[in-house]
């Protein structure tokens, strides 16, 4: 119990510290790396609450968003592909993969384990109640994607 508490406090400090340092780093690339670290800490905290499926999905989905931020910040910084940067990003990707592996190994991915999980249970029991809500949610990124394309098209034609 005490060991679990110590791990939770350590991950909490890790998450909050990396979130706080986002605003004090010199470059935007470092900010995005700190954001990635705070995401990893956050999903580990969810894992400690025994919501393993939620932690797994959260990390997998946010890695997709983070890759976009990495591309944008790298293109903003105009960083050359040196060996030092290559090593740095390899270490970061190893950290992300290791955390994914830890979550995969700790998650109960068998039939009874999945059914015991609260996050999955909610979708089994509330499927019919929130059916249209989930449809509406699916349209939000769709509308956002069309909006982004329209902004870029409008800019290409006329300029702002």
């Amino acid at each position: 119990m005490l060991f679990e508490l110590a791990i939770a406090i350590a991950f909490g400090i890790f998450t909050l510290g990396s979130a706080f340092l986002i605003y004090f780093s010199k470059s935007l690339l470092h900010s995005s790396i700190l954001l990635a670290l705070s995401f990893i800490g956050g999903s580990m905290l969810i894992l400690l609450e025994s919501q393993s499926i939620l932690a797994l999905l959260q990390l997998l989905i946010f890695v997709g968003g983070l890759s976009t931020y990495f591309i944008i910040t790298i293109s903003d910084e105009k960083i050359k592909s040196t060996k030092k940067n290559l090593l740095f990003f390899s270490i970061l990707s190893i950290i992300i993969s290791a955390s994914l592996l830890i979550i995969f190994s700790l998650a109960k991915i068998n039939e009874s384990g999945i059914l015991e999980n609260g996050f999955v249970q909610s979708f089994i029991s509330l499927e019919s109640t929130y059916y249209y809500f989930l449809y509406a949610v699916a349209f939000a990124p769709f509308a956002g994607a069309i909006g982004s394309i329209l902004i870029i098209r409008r800019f290409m034609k006329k300029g702002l």
Partner: protein
Amino acid sequence: MIELFYIGVILFGIGLAGVVSNRNIILIIFSIELMLLSSIILLGYGLSSSSNPEGSEMIIAIWAVAALDAMVLVAMYFVLSSIGSKFDVKFFEESKG
């Protein structure tokens, strides 16, 4: 674990302070991501602390908003970087419509 509740609340505060105090668009969107992360942590805390799982479908909505953030940032980055403008929110004072 009650600590997770406090961590989520502090994280939300850090994100809110970042949105209010920064002028860089990329940092503002990072702060919004932090707020979304904190809300997922709080919903995870709610899932584990109560036997009633109702409300967890909001997690899907949060993931959708996070994806939407990334899309909007890409569009804004494309437009602002091709103008040569800095990523300052002051720029939007000049934009029309």
